[in-house]
């Protein structure tokens, strides 16, 4: 375990530094003077301008600015939004639960359909059902979700009148955002005593379409991964042994095979976080979902540079950490990987000059 952390941090630290450098300098490259932008057309009085520039630290050398940025970031201060004049960190965390709730709902949707689809396709390999499910999943994988969301709205909201078009909750309900997760907040005693269960169902109905739109691509990826991983496992000796022992087909598939087939899915789930954020940016714009994605799009249009900088930094750091976490989880779940790691470490101990462990080289994709 200690080795794992050591080995990873050698790669992790430079990556995080790179991420912070990129998010810092990307924003500095945006044309236009942020001070002018903040003061507006009328406030361009030279004295006020200099004062503002000093206040923001923009009169310092750029390297100095970067270190100030990092130092402040560690103290939880990423500046103020140029538009709302409130703390960026606060704004981020007030919107984050909305994105997280949507993300988890879409992942739930993707898993509940993706895994069974993959298992069925693997069991009925090369049959009609296999071809059908895999074609559908390729269609899902190719889906322009900004269009898919609109089609869902046309079908379910406008034609069938089943679900609301946008937002998180019917505006007639005034609930207290304690956790920020509306599915939980609407079940808190204060809301329940006031409105009953109606707000809960309202937030559930609002969540429905965006979760489908956002979960479609992950569903397709999960179904395809589950299928190929399941096929690998079904060909293994221990499955044949289980068959020979007369264990029922259902039991073999659902318990013996699926348990091992799910291991690679964990990695895919982790790597999917990036595409989920991409999904959030598009889905939230379509459904006016008040989360991180919509916030970033509007900040980019408004050139609200502290927000862009902080948002990019937050998300990228988050993804880097999640990828490391997934790697770690993978070693925990799969004992073979743990052995592999031990072997590598022993080898390294034996020949300290061997800098690149074979396991690292063998994991190109």
């Amino acid at each position: 375990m200690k080795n794992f952390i050591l080995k990873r941090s050698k790669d992790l630290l430079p990556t995080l530094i790179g991420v912070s450098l990129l998010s810092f300098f990307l924003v500095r490259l945006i044309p236009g003077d942020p001070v002018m932008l903040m003061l507006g057309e009328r406030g361009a009085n030279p004295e006020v301008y200099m004062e503002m520039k000093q206040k923001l630290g923009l009169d310092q050398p750029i390297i100095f600015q970067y270190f100030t940025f990092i130092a402040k970031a560690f103290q939880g201060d990423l500046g103020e939004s140029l538009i709302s004049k409130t703390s960026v960190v606060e704004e981020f965390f007030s919107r984050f639960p909305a994105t997280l709730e949507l993300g988890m709902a879409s992942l739930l949707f993707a898993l509940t359909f993706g895994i069974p689809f993959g298992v069925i396709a693997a069991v009925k390999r090369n049959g009609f059902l296999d071809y059908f499910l895999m074609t559908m999943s390729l269609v899902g994988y190719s889906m322009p979700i900004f269009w898919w969301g609109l089609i869902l709205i046309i079908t379910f909201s406008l034609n069938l009148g089943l679900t609301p078009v946008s937002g998180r909750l019917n505006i007639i309900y005034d609930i207290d955002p304690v956790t920020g997760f509306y599915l939980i907040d609407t079940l808190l005693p204060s809301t329940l005593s006031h409105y009953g269960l109606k707000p809960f169902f309202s937030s559930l109905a609002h969540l429905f379409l965006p979760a489908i739109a956002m979960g479609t691509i992950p569903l397709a990826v999960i179904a395809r991964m589950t299928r190929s991983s399941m096929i690998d496992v079904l060909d293994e000796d221990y499955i044949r042994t289980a068959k020979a022992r007369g264990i029922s087909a259902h039991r073999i598939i659902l318990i013996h095979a699926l348990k091992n087939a799910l291991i690679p899915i964990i990695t895919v789930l982790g790597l999917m976080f990036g595409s989920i954020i991409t999904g959030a940016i598009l889905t939230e714009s379509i459904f006016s979902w008040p989360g991180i994605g919509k916030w970033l799009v509007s900040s980019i249009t408004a050139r609200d540079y502290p927000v862009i900088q902080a948002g990019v930094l937050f998300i990228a750091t988050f993804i880097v950490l999640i990828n490391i976490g997934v790697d770690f989880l993978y070693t925990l779940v799969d004992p073979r990987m743990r052995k592999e790691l031990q072997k590598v470490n022993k080898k390294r101990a034996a020949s300290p000059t061997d800098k690149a462990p074979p396991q690292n080289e063998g994991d190109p994709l």
Partner: protein
Amino acid sequence: MRSTFLQNFRLFSQNRGALIGLLFILFFTLLALLAPWLAPKDPNTLYVEHLREAPFHPSFLLGTDDLGRDYLSRLIYGARISLGTGILIVLFSGTVGTILGLLGGFYGKKIDWAVMRLVDILMAFPSILLAMAVVSILGPGLLNAIIAVSIVACPQFIKIARAKAMIEKKQTYIMASRTFGASSPRLIFKEILPNCLGPLLVQASLGVSDGILNVAALGFLGLGAQAPTPEWGIMLADARVFIMSSPFLVTLPGICILILVLSFNLFGDGLRDIIDPKLKARSS
């Protein structure tokens, strides 16, 4: 050489999905190349008397948009933009990514480490987010969207080229050429690169589909191609307002994007089955 080509073609044509994909790609390529002759009208002419005409109108087969422009013509010209951007993105990201990956894989050590950290950093930014940030620097526009999406698409090519280069550099033929005094650049580009082309070609096909999707998404968010350009993403965004009264305006561009993206994915999948028969044996 010829016989393996024929063999491969036979293998390919047995894969029905890949064949359908190829046919649609050819169809859209023809649309794109012959747009000025195939489009019934000019894509930017405003027929002010015919605003949001429904499809199957006698003079506008697929109707008109909110400014009275012929929708079919705009969709045909849109194929030009989407296909063109997809291919340009793969050319840019494929060239840069392959070179970086080959260098990393071939030289190993510090160069490889640096290349891989670059991959890690780029991969940490969700594709649309990074593209959005780049576009906010360069300003919205089709060319800038292409640059942004190309940067985002590099890591895939880097990883594939690097992995192949690592395997190939240990082969005997490389050692042999080295003993004959072949220089490193020669080894990389004349010996190793041709052997990496297979997987890179598969990635190129999948990369076109990703590129098309990302550029359309940027267009939809208002950060890609700008107003009068008949780009499918913007057409979709413009049509959002009329989602109730003229749903076909929303439906059609999306179907075009979906079919084109799906075709490249089908084609890429089929290509992979040929190039990596091991994978096929395992999965079917």
